[in-house]
């Protein structure tokens, strides 16, 4: 009994940031750095890494939200000094060039955490919608429409800017606290202890182990969800005759890549198909025609259907659409005649998910020897 009473007493030199919280913080630093680098600086085909960083963020954030209720004393949101009075008093003293030392977060710092965490939660959510709606990948692929994905991308970009600003404030505040006011915040986030601070509550090893266990459980849960919600590879319905007959000389283009009208025009002029006779028996042509009337750019809600499929061209070629040309204008004409590519219409030489109709930026892989 006496022992427990003693533990409840404020204690000098005690751990204020438990191990799971410190792990969360530094993991966050690494993962956000990867996400920001891949998001801002790298080519679209680094999107895979960006998405993995996003899933990692999802796990870390879920953990932090739970830990805000069941972590040790200073990790709990309930103990954040967020009250208006405290914030105003803190800002007033800052303006006078003083900063009262808090054991856990100070009021401005605590609000900073709230802003950082909410921005990150919204970033991960909007990111999942972009990934699902625009790239037709990930757990929200079957839920998010292309329009939602596109709108989410705008939101995602604004939030990313906000996050960068918030991180700048957070780091700036910590540096000022640490080096001007001499409050050892950085060391505390590494060792967990703040010299001379009289800490509330007590951090137990078992509790920290529980925290790590919780994080592992969240990682497993998220991984299961991501895997279970994965849709089929091929988007929409397939037709064996179409795949066979239209896949003889080139990739059996996904039906979402042209409109029903364009497909019909093409099927009625197969005797001269871009300089070759690609004629079919009437029976096969009728079957394919029926399939493409049911499945074409207007019946699919994917990026390629919206950006290329629904844009009709006089030549019926998808490579004559402005979007196709804009997306490929970095490449010299000679690139397309490279032995591993052959022609502009050999989409799957680089787009590994072309046959499925996905064309995700993350699935672009240039053949060996081909450079941008």
């Amino acid at each position: 009994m006496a022992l427990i009473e003693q533990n409840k007493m404020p204690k000098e030199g005690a751990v204020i940031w438990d191990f799971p919280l410190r792990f969360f913080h530094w993991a966050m630093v690494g993962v956000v750095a990867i996400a920001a680098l891949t998001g801002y600086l790298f080519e679209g085909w680094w999107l895979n890494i960006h998405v993995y960083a996003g899933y990692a963020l999802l796990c870390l954030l879920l953990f932090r939200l739970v830990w805000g209720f069941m972590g040790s004393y200073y990790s709990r949101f309930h103990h954040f000094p967020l009250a208006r009075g405290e914030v105003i008093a803190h800002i007033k003293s800052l303006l006078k060039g003083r900063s009262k030392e808090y054991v856990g977060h100070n009021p401005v710092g605590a609000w900073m955490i709230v802003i950082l965490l909410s921005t990150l939660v919204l970033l991960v959510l909007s990111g999942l919608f972009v990934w699902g709606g625009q790239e037709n990948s990930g757990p929200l692929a079957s839920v998010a429409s292309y329009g939602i994905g596109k709108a989410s991308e705008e939101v995602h970009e604004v939030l990313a800017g906000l996050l960068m600003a918030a991180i700048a404030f957070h780091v700036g505040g910590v540096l000022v606290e640490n080096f001007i006011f001499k409050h050892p915040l950085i060391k505390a986030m590494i060792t967990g202890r703040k010299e001379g601070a009289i800490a509330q509550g007590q951090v137990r090893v078992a509790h920290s182990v529980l925290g790590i266990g919780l994080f592992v459980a969240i990682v497993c849960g998220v991984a299961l969800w991501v895997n279970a919600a994965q849709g089929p590879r091929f988007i929409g319905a397939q037709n064996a005759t179409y795949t066979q007959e239209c896949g003889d000389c080139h990739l059996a283009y996904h039906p979402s890549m042209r409109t029903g009208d364009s497909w019909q025009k093409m099927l009625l002029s197969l005797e001269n198909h871009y300089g070759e006779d690609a004629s079919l028996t009437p029976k096969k042509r009728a079957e394919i025609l029926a399939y493409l009337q049911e499945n074409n750019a207007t019946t699919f809600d994917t990026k390629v259907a919206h950006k290329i499929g629904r844009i009709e061209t006089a030549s019926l070629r998808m490579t004559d659409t402005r979007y196709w040309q804009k997306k490929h204008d970095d490449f010299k004409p000679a690139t397309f005649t490279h032995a591993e590519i052959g022609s502009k219409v050999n989409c799957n030489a680089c787009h590994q998910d072309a046959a499925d109709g996905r064309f995700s930026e993350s699935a672009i892989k240039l053949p060996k020897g081909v450079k941008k």
Partner: protein
Amino acid sequence: MRKMIFTLLGVGALLGTSYAAQANSVLILEGYQAQAQMDDPAFREFSAERGQEFFSQNHTGGKPQTPSCTTCHTADPSGAGQTRAGKTIAPLAISKTPDRYSDFEKVEKWFRRNCTSVLGRTCSAREKGDFITFMKTR
């Protein structure tokens, strides 16, 4: 013992399909032979040499993008070709693609299409027979 039986059965099945493919291609050639004789009573037999010449020469009358069989199939029938769209074509030589000339519908489909593209006309039974006879020697 059982393993041996299975191995034998496996080998038998393989030989069987390859024989079936060969038997089919023989039937297809016999069909072209009969047709060629109807077209020209003086016709005797197919010739690999004529097939080779037909395969490698530049033809006129077809589409400008495809003057010769070799445009897509390359000059070496035992190597892979490439369509103008960039897709790889399996070798034409029977030694490399044993079931190449075993499906009559498919054989006719490609002669129909490619003769229009390369020669601007249908091919005669003699030309088709010479072509396959040449590919059998490769």
